[in-house]
């Protein structure tokens, strides 16, 4: 790790000021950023720890859905009675992230801001028609993820909270990487009345919606409705753990499992 200045502001406004410093970085739970620093792959001058800012914390019921502060740890979401009652699929997604240590430190905001193609949360943001609030504006979940490790956030913009809509039914099915336990493929299926969303993470450079799956499920919300459907392997991720065609295959399998789990 290279040396850096450590700051721990207690308000969002102070954090917004601090992050203006050149080469400053926001620190969430540190589960992505700290390993990067330890390996000397980044060299920020300042780390702005978001852990002492009340505006970034907490889980509330809002508009029938949930509003979750950016600095909410994965374990808090996983164990929240409110989340389990309103959107149980979201609690189970959080429970499936990494391992216990990672869940006790990592934050929802950090995960979403980081936009790792294998992260779990992006699928929920897209499938649950979420709205992302920052210190500057609100951004539709549909527009938030713009590419691999890329989001609509501008430099220095702080993710404040995410508002998730409450679906009638939903489930998240993950095929985890046996080594890292990130998603090789994760599929979040959510049903809102006649409308169905199927968001896929892990498979490509960024989360995407499987529109053919959505149409089929809108007509018939059963796993069998996905028989014969698949996503194109072209352009999907490939690595030593999973080739593109295996990932394409897993998208269908996980989508079916999510539909079955959603009931």
């Amino acid at each position, binding site marked *: *790790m*290279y*040396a850096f200045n450590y700051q721990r502001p207690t308000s969002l406004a102070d954090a917004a000021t601090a992050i203006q410093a050149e080469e400053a970085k926001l620190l969430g739970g540190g589960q992505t950023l700290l390993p990067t620093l330890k*390996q*000397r792959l980044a060299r920020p001058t300042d780390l702005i720890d978001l852990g002492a800012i009340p505006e970034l914390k907490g889980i509330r019921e809002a508009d029938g859905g949930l509003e979750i502060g950016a600095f909410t740890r994965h374990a808090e979401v996983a164990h929240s009675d409110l989340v389990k009652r309103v959107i149980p699929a979201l609690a189970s997604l959080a429970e499936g992230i990494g391992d216990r240590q990672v869940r006790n430190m990592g934050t929802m905001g950090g995960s979403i801001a980081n936009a790792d193609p294998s992260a779990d949360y992006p699928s929920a943001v897209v499938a649950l028609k979420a709205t992302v609030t920052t210190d500057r504006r609100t951004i539709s979940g549909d527009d938030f993820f713009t590419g691999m490790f890329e989001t609509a956030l501008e430099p220095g913009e702080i993710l404040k909270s995410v508002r998730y809509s409450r679906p009638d039914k939903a489930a998240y099915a993950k*095929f985890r990487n*046996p*080594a*890292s336990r990130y998603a090789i493929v994760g599929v979040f299926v959510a049903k809102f009345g006649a409308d169905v969303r199927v968001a896929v993470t892990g498979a490509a450079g960024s989360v995407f919606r499987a529109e053919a799956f959505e149409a089929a499920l809108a007509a018939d919300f059963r796993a069998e409705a996905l028989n014969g459907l698949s996503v194109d392997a072209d352009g999907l991720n490939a690595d*030593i*753990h*999973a*080739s593109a065609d*295996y990932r394409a*295959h*897993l998208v269908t*399998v996980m989508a079916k499992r999510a539909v079955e789990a959603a009931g």
Partner: protein
Amino acid sequence: MANPNGIGASVRRREDQRFLTGRGNYTDDFKRLNMTHAVHVRSPYAHARILGIDFTDAAAMPGVVAVLTGADMEADKVGSLPCGWQIHSKDGSPMKEPPHYPLARDRVRYVGDAVAVVIAETREQARDAAEMVVVDYEELPAVGSSTRAVAGGAPLVHDDAPDNVCYDWHLGDKAATDAAFANAAHIAKIDLVNQRLVPNAMEPRAAMGEYDQSNGEYTLTTTSQNPHVTRLLMGAFVLGIPEHKLRVVAPDVGGGFGSKIFHYGEEAVVTWAARKVGRPVKWTADRSESFLTDAHGRDHVSHAELAMDADGNFLALRVSTLANLGAYLSTFAPSIPTYLYATLLAGQYKTPAIYAEVKAVFTNTSPVDAYRGAGRPEACYLIERLVDVAAGVMGMDKTEIRRRNFVPKEAMPYQTPVALQYDTGDFAKNLDIALPLVDYPGFQQRRAESKARGKLRGIGFATYIEACGIAPSNVAGALGARAGLYECAEVRFHPTGSVTVFTGAHSHGQGHETTFAQIVAERFGIPIENVEIVHGDTNKIPFGMGTYGSRSLAVGGSALVKAMDKVERKARKIAAHMLEAAETDIEVKEGRFTVAGTDKSLGIGDIALQAYVPHNFPLDELEPGLDEQAFYDPKNFTYPNGCHVCELEIDPDTGVTTIVSFAAVDDFGNVINPLIVEGQVHGGLVQGIGQALYENCVYDEESGQLVTGSYMDYCMPRADDVPSFTVRYHEDQPCTHNPLGVKGCGEAGTIGAAAAVMNAVVDALSDYGVTHMDMPATPEKVWRTIRDAAPAPAMAAE
């Protein structure tokens, strides 16, 4: 009254108090006044010429004390890291033994090869400066795998090792084997890869060197499984330090699995540098360095054939193996794919003729050496996979073909065609115990139930035998070992009756501090609390050979018994004197010395006191003191053996394998501490399962870059990947040639498990016509195998 903490008691590990409360003392925990920190500059290339090293900027960085290179070592006449075992090729020529310098001199040969060391006030400063060292490399074509190494025209890792061959060795009777094949009714064949593994001890390697100018003494504190071996190799061959001026301490060590047997360059670097900079120098590997530079394990590519008669009796086995030794010869590397592998190819079977050829090659990868099991898991995996293929060829039940070919108990001691003589073993009994544990008759029904749920169920058997407690020095010496293989112990009674034991074995997770104390407590009838076990310091203990190859109890424990015999003999003399009886009239039981036929007796505590307060000793007959030392050189290897059974389920939609149950039945001879034995078996099984399903060290064949250099890509097995194990052992077949009747249990789990799992995977896929799959059985590999299988099972059933 039996000692509650004696032999056979499941005493909880005494060392765990300090480990579990964070009070262990590991090498990196040691701090010295004025200590400096070393960071190595390592090659990013698998193969390159070093054209120059510019460290002007690095040397000027804050806190930098020195930047040292291979040229500095050369100027100081630092030698090459020696190899401890010499193999001769078929044609009688000695193996190729290219130099291996602690800091590379003009060429680097694997990613991670050290080219310079930066020494600074803090570790971070050393790292900062290491990044500023500019090495001018001319990249050379690299060899990333053993198969590429022997492909015609491959680049040469060492100019003086043509075709990259270190040796081309063989064992067994080729003519007899060929003749048996010519007459065989059936032949089973297999091609398999035993993939390379990274050891991944929890504690990374570390070393701290110190030099005392006032008396010329060096101290190396290091993560070693055998500090005396390191002292001998480093002192005599690398740095030229006489042994009385060199102390090597291996304090608490957080796991080794073989990877900490070897003498590594960093140990020599910090010891040498400590004198150069006049201050203690410490180096601790980070996890990435561990991946890159710890000696790796396995890495065999083999072809094997088994000849059978019309009834499935094994007639002959023919094996040809290509073994990857990496870029340089690690300390015991040459012995692993030869004498610790091919000699085990008889397995539990009475195959009359065996012939094995092993070609060992250099590649531009990290050195490969012993890793838990060391050669024996490779042998077991090959035999047991081949036997399953043979069962298929014969249409025989997999347990039946094994049973038919077992060396029967009555044939013990049994001379195998590959050099070893098994002393005891009842292989049929292991199987008899195992089968009810797994309800073998009920398997077909369970398989059908799985199928109804869309899952594929398989059961796999593996029997194993290993040669442990390595070994009689004269035999090892004849086979090329450049060291003796005995063990030492010293038993020191203190005046008040407590005991300190000094053992040359080293504990880095095995629990010696408990088991060795149990043996002493039992023998002398004293509380276990009164016994302390000291190990790991060359200034405290006699010359010890350390711990590896499941040898501690079989060899070190035997030395301990020998030393206790001497103590008892001496104590008997003292008792005779004190009780005014003839020595021959003294009866000894659990530390109580009684004049036969009387109630006159003394306890060992009273005797110890007298030994140190010899007010009326007849000094020309009786020396004061009660402190005895012994060396034990075994008469033979020991032969732990067992039967492992794995049952698992495969999800054909995803290719994911889930182990449903795993039973291990082992014969370790007599058991000192069942709790520790069970723990050793559990750990071993998980390591074997790890190889079968998860772990795989991948180098890019062409560039020689390590692809799996972190836990993001190198998959370690975790607690939730394995089921609760069923572990049984029997003590019917104690070792016949050591005083405790023990065989060793440290590696057994790893040896049998991988084969049992893979046999179960292949069994689960048998409907698809699958007869073999290389490890690890990753989800994609399994899924692809099913997808590509033709015909599909429904059609196959027609």
